[in-house]
């Protein structure tokens, strides 16, 4: 059952960005400074307003907290239903944390149409927070699509040379997936109506109770409709082709948000909908999805290796890193799931930081070609230190955040009874090695060697603003690396409950071979023996 204690806490961080968006609309466009600072202040206020959630959140409670349910469209029983569990809490705080940094990172580079830009940033934040807190399929869908509009403009107006192509591709790819999801959402609402005594509803909690009763072959279609939408967003190989275009063309802040938060909407959706609603269908598709994520890990790494553009390299590294997340999700073990969730946060922090570093270089040289750089360490020592941390976090160096996430997902998939095949972990582990190769190699070419390009001689080191964009990220990268328990404890109960219920549901289905069921049973016994 959802917990409604201090439900009001959730409204403030959710609606502050919307309030900010509306206030920006009323500021005259020539007041550029005011626009910038109002946006920054609103995003910081949102972050501070989200902190009470973190402290008021009870790790020991199962189910959603801060739950509220306000009627919205009574005739289809759609409501403004919002709430948080451990996973969404982490992602909400990640979002409110990344946004002020991205906004600060936009102050220098964004020179045109400031009013539209900052309004779009706040609208984007509102949409992203909405996605993570929605407990109503209709509301979820509205927020999910709401994000398309600002992101489309961010890429299309303030992007690079091929921005229009990238923006339209981003829009169409995402929309194709989400419209199929819409059909699935409608179908589930109707399923609730078709059950005896039922009525049409979009209440996630009711649907979650009803979902196991849906015939398995229909569950499979629903599963696929949701999964396609989310896998495009993640993006899972082979749906990843929009990502490099969008990343390369987007302005730095856009890339940071894209990598930091937007992609997590895909993995979040996979867990929230595919795992929670259709465990049986997941069982059927665990292997294909696991293979795709392993291919994504290796393919992303190999393609990243041959890139000559730093930003493109980081973009492909995202494809690789998110492969780990998806692998952790389909492993359906508490470790894998927790690893996947923490890896979402990690990827947001470290890849976001890498994009910021690329942005720093681009602002100074207006190029991102690796060959144009060399020996930057000598002229920008502070930047070199930051870039090193970001890179090492991304590689997965023990002591920094990336290690924890990758370790847990690999561990989870290795011992997963759902996948029951250690090769997934073995293959993906190679992705860690590849990551070290492409990142270190890039780092060596950009930062070390001789600084023989005269254009690189007089580069200035980090400005104060840039410095303060990076420092908060470093704090959390180290924090998660050294003391992950702060964050893992939030999702521990959630992961265990979910895995437990999935195993129970799948066990109860006769459509599966006895042997597999037997194995899972042993696994469950083994678990409960602890």
């Amino acid at each position, binding site marked *: 059952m959802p917990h409604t204690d201090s439900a009001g806490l959730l409204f403030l961080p959710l609606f502050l960005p919307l309030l900010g968006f509306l206030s920006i609309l009323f500021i005259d466009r020539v007041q550029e400074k005011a626009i910038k600072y109002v946006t920054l202040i609103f995003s910081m206020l949102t972050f501070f307003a989200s902190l009470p959630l973190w402290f008021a959140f009870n790790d020991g409670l199962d189910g959603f907290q801060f739950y509220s349910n306000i009627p919205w469209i009574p005739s289809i029983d759609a409501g403004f239903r919002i709430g948080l569990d451990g996973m969404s809490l982490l992602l909400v705080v990640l979002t409110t944390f990344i946004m002020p940094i991205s906004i600060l990172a936009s102050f220098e580079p964004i020179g045109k149409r400031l009013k539209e830009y900052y309004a779009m940033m706040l609208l984007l934040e509102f949409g992203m927070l909405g996605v993570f807190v929605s407990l109503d399929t209709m509301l979820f869908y509205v927020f999910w*699509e*709401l994000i398309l509009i600002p992101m489309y403009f961010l890429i299309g107006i303030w992007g690079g040379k091929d921005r229009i192509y990238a923006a339209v591709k981003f829009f169409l790819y995402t929309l*194709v997936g989400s419209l199929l999801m819409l*059909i699935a959402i409608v179908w589930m609402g109707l399923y609730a109506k078709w059950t005896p005594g039922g009525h049409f509803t979009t209440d996630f909690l009711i649907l979650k109770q009803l979902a196991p009763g849906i015939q398995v072959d229909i569950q499979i279609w629903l599963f696929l409709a949701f999964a396609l939408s989310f896998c495009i967003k993640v993006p899972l190989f082979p749906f990843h082709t929009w990502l490099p275009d969008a990343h390369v063309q987007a302005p730095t802040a856009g890339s940071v948000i894209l990598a930091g938060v937007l992609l997590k909407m895909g993995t979040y959706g996979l867990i929230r909908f595919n795992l929670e609603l259709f465990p049986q269908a997941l069982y059927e598709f665990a292997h294909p999805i696991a293979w795709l994520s392993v291919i994504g890990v290796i393919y992303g790494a190999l393609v990243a290796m041959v890139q000559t553009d730093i930003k493109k390299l980081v973009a492909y590294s995202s494809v690789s890193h998110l492969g780990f997340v998806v692998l952790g999700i389909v492993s359906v073990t508490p470790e894998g799931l927790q690893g996947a969730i923490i890896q979402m946060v990690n990827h947001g922090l470290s890849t976001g930081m890498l994009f910021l570093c690329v942005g720093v270089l681009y602002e100074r040289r207006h190029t991102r070609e690796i060959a144009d750089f060399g020996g930057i360490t000598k002229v920008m020592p502070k930047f070199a230190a930051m870039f090193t941390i970001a890179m090492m976090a991304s590689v997965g160096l023990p002591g920094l955040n990336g290690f924890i996430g990758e370790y847990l997902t690999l561990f989870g998939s290795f011992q997963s009874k759902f996948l029951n095949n250690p090769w997934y972990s073995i293959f993906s582990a190679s992705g860690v090695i590849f990551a070290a190769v492409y990142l270190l190699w890039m780092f060596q070419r950009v930062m070390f060697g001789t600084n023989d390009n005269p254009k690189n001689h007089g580069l200035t080191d980090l400005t104060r603003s840039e410095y303060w964009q990076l420092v908060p990220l470093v704090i959390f990268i180290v924090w998660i690396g050294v003391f992950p328990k702060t964050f893992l404890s939030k999702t521990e109960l959630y992961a265990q409950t979910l895995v437990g219920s999935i195993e129970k549901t799948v066990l109860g289905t006769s459509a599966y071979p006895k042997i597999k069921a037997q194995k899972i049973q042993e696994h469950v016994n083994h678990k409960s023996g602890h």
Partner: protein
Amino acid sequence: MIQDLLLTAPFTFLSAMAIIAMVVDALIKNSARITFLFSVITLIVSGILAIATFGQHGIGFNGMVTGGGFASYFDLLFSLGGLLTIFAARSYLQREGIEHDEFYSLVLFAIGGMMLIGHSNNLLSLFIGIEIMSVVFYVLSGYMRSSIASVESSLKYFLLGAFSTGFLVYGMALIYGATGSMDYNHIAMNITRGSLPLESLLPIGIALMVIGLSFKAAAFPFHQWAPDVYQGAPTIVTAFMSTAGKAAAFAAFMPMIMVLMPAATAKLQMTFAVLSAATMLIGNISALAQTNIKRMLAFSSVAHAGYLMMGLVAGSQSGYSGIMFYLTSYMFMQIGSFIIVGLLERRGEEHLEIADYAGLSKKHPVLAAFMAIFMFSLAGIPPFAGFFGKYYLFTAAIDAGYLWLTIIAVLSSIISVYFYIGLIVKMYFNESEKDMPDTEIGLSGMSLVITIAGVIILGIMPSGILSIANAIFGHSSH
């Protein structure tokens, strides 16, 4: 008699006023200003009357018309459409130099015809309503007398329209032959009772009527006239025809289906499903190739007829409510976008290419933002009205077992997104090549504010309209 007049108050009031307006035109020179104000007041009053008569029930004038509920809703919708049109029409007509006195009374007559369609409870009154509306449309589309395109549009519309009316009348005649009555209630009764002497005529009659009405709704395969007529007609007339005209076609369709459904449920549903799928695909795919904005919106309007037909396919309470909601939201977004097109248009078909919209967001940020919202709404992106319209229709179609149709609808929506956001790409991402005209917004601003508010409010708070629509069709969902 008084009872009958009260039942149909919005329609009778508006028709009387239309006649007075016409007389005023004839008697007073340069009466455009007077008739404009007169029409505004008339439309507001008939809108209020529509709300006031909403709760009534029953039939009047010897069973020729019904009142209240369904009819009142359409009365209100048509009055609103008329109001939005004439607010925007005034400055548009002046700019184009065609503000002849009779424009406003013609619009009133068209609305009178449409209202009669909504009220009709008899094939005869339906026919009269359709003819009044159509004849006015023939005149209005040729209103720009000096423009060859406009005259061509009028002639084309007239010839094809007359042809389609032939189908309609023949269909009505056959239905009368088969069932022995023109009255909806009697037709329905006779069909349910069964053993009609000339039963084999019924399906042919239904088919011919569907053809006639599909023409009015601009549905495939009878949509060919729409792009040419919509492009040639004065922009503001196009806005009116493509929204209120379409709504009128569906106001005719819905009671007809409800009456005739018992005769041919499965076949009729399947026919509509195929027509609907073809309509949206053809409309959207053709719109992709257009370079003229009016033509693009014309083809998109064909596609929207396809979405609307999904509600007829479902043939259920939620399907009909979905149609009502969709027609309302469509009126806001389509009229809104045509008003902006009209504001930027210059005499002699200037500035109507999509390419001319490059860089609009710099010159006219507010107009561009409005246009972007209309486009997102037409494309069905939440949180705008168009999304919820589609959502209800999709839900109704899936509920009726037409999942394949919904999937086609989704695919064609994806196609449509490409040209809708194509316009946004032009307005926001491209730099202008030629000078953007200055524009005086004037009274059009009123219409724009109402339409944009409608698109956003219906998008965020759709439950109001929906519960009204549900009340009309009763709560007898299956």
